[in-house]
């Protein structure tokens, strides 16, 4: 079972340290997103990287629309991996939608995480007037889904059937896996829907794990209003607004990102 989970989620474990940091990627790509960051921590911590089922080099046969029809299915992936590695009191670093996935896992299993570091998180992406600004209208998210579909057009027509049963022609499945950020269009579409149409605001009061919210100064996906909302509603949270712009500071500004994480861990006596 343990081996199955580790293979299913393409789990990689490295680094030295008594405490573990588990890095969780967001919607769009896979664990490679963390490659500019992990090097700063693997001397002091054990590092766990993984791909959610349906992303990266996970076992795509394990994907089921039922299980992954809500963020709870992805939270279960995180809990499965922690159970397989016997992780307790870990530090969870989640990018984008993984912020809420980690929060859900921490509610379901108190004691799983000692701290959570949420990079560009959002509890709800769509505006809910008059009081909540998420940054998007529903139609704009529909536009995203269309855009994704158009860009999958090229390979979807001949690769999609292969992904579904790639046992027939493994070389095509391999080709697909080698393409960074690629995934089955149906899986990607469902993950996008689950991500951008979810609303986890009601879950926030149940979060009991201390957290750091890393907010970029100009983030098209999680605007500053969202970071502040989270800071107000997450008990035991800190908010750091960083110079970096965009939605991927761990890629665009790795040094600054590493810096704020180290500051937080030091303040928490973890480093």
């Amino acid at each position: 079972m343990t081996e199955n989970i580790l293979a299913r989620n393409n789990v990689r474990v490295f680094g030295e340290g008594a405490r573990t940091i588990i890095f969780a990627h967001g919607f769009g790509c896979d664990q490679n997103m963390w490659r500019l960051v992990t090097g700063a921590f693997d001397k002091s911590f054990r590092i766990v990287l993984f791909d959610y089922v349906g992303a990266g080099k996970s076992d795509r046969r394990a994907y089921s629309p039922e299980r992954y029809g809500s963020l709870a299915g992805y939270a279960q992936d995180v809990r499965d991996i922690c159970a397989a590695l016997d992780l307790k009191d870990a530090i969870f670093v989640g990018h984008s939608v993984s912020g809420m996935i980690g929060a859900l896992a921490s509610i379901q299993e108190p004691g799983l995480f000692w701290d959570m570091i949420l990079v560009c998180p959002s509890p709800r992406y769509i505006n809910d007037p008059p009081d909540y600004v998420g940054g998007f209208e529903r139609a704009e998210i529909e536009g995203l889904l269309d855009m994704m579909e158009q860009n999958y057009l090229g390979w979807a027509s001949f690769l999609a059937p292969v992904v579904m049963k790639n046992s027939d022609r493994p070389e095509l499945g391999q080709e697909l896996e080698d393409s960074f950020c690629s995934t089955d269009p149906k899986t990607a579409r469902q993950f996008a829907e689950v991500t951008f149409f979810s609303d986890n605001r009601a879950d926030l009061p149940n979060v009991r794990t201390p957290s750091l919210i890393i907010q970029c100064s100009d983030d098209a996906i999680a605007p500053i209003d969202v970071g502040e909302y989270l800071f107000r509603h997450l008990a035991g949270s800190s908010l750091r607004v960083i110079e970096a712009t965009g939605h991927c500071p761990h890629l665009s500004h790795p040094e600054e990102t590493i810096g704020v994480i180290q500051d937080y861990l030091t303040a928490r006596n973890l480093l």
Partner: protein
Amino acid sequence: MNDLLNDAPCAFLTFSSESLIEFANAALLSLLGYAGDELRGRRLDSLLSPGGRVFYQTHLYPLLHMQGRLDEISLSLMTKGGEEIPVLLYAQRTEKEGVDFYSGVLAPMRQRRRFEEELILARRAAEEAAEGQRAANAALEEARRALEAQHAELQTLNAVIEARSERERNIAERLQDALRPALHGPVPGLDLAYYYQPALEEAGVGGDFFDVFPLDSGRYALVVGDLAGKGLDAAAQTATVRHMLRALLYIGEEPASAIVKLNDMLAGNALLTGFATLFVGVYDPQHFAVTYVSCGQEPGLLLRADTGGVESLMPTGPVLGAFAGSVFQQRCVLLEPEDVLCLFTDGLTEAGLERSNMLGVEGIADLLREETPEAQTAASVARRLIDGTEMFATAAGIRDDVCLLVVRVQSKTDSD
């Protein structure tokens, strides 16, 4: 170089690692309705449709950053006036003197986008059709499995039912065998034959019966009876009459007193739904004598060998089981060698087309008179009587239970 790029026929731009636009050529400015330096310092993704902005942040930026290039990405640009223009984006990262430098080409593709959208719709329709087909196949497969399961269940049930009905058939056959009259062992000096045909053939037994059995005194009982009614009820009551009579004769009652007692018991206890007719004779082999009582039974016909004449053994009392206290006489007749005594039920005499045109006792007697003593056996007499009756009754058939017992006294040479 900038002049060449500025005047190039495609939209071209350069931007920083933070996606801030550094240079936009004339074709791009004109495409989007901007002029001069209006685009410098703007974020590249701010030119995209809202969906495109998310796509850029979640997919394109990481791709460009990590792979160094983007090829053939389908996006929508927003003009200054808010119009959406579908474009294809090609972008790459190059390094110059330790600094990353990003450039991109944007090609409008209004026609191609429409075509692609149609393709997507067609693909979706195909996928839905395939999905529908899969679902239909699955449902079909499910139905087939259910049918197979039901079929298997049915076969099991059938096997159970067959086993049960086989057992029931065995029981019924054993019971029929027990009830069905038959001859057991020879009677000294007599040649016996019988014909027995229940109207309800499949029941195997009916309301008519005969019985031949030895008594302690060395004598033999010869019985032919007919219960009113047909079928299984009659057959069950037949058994009652037959065995009660046996009991009375076994304990030594003479025929008349046996019948009086039997009649009282049957009538007094209402053992019959109707009544019975019955001939009971006790044959004494020592004297070739038959002492008999006939309770409303068809006359026994006695074909005398020496004269060829037929005598009738008429009833000596009323029907059996109807009235308690009835009186029955008994008579005795002496038999001679080669005499033939025929005892039968009304199924034989009443064979015919209608009541006014039945064979009748006279018809049977006529058939008997045609017999020539030399060629006779009990079996041949019985055969000819039945054949004659059936010929007479051709059209209507024999509809009632029929029972015939033929008793032929052996000739002196037979017994030698």
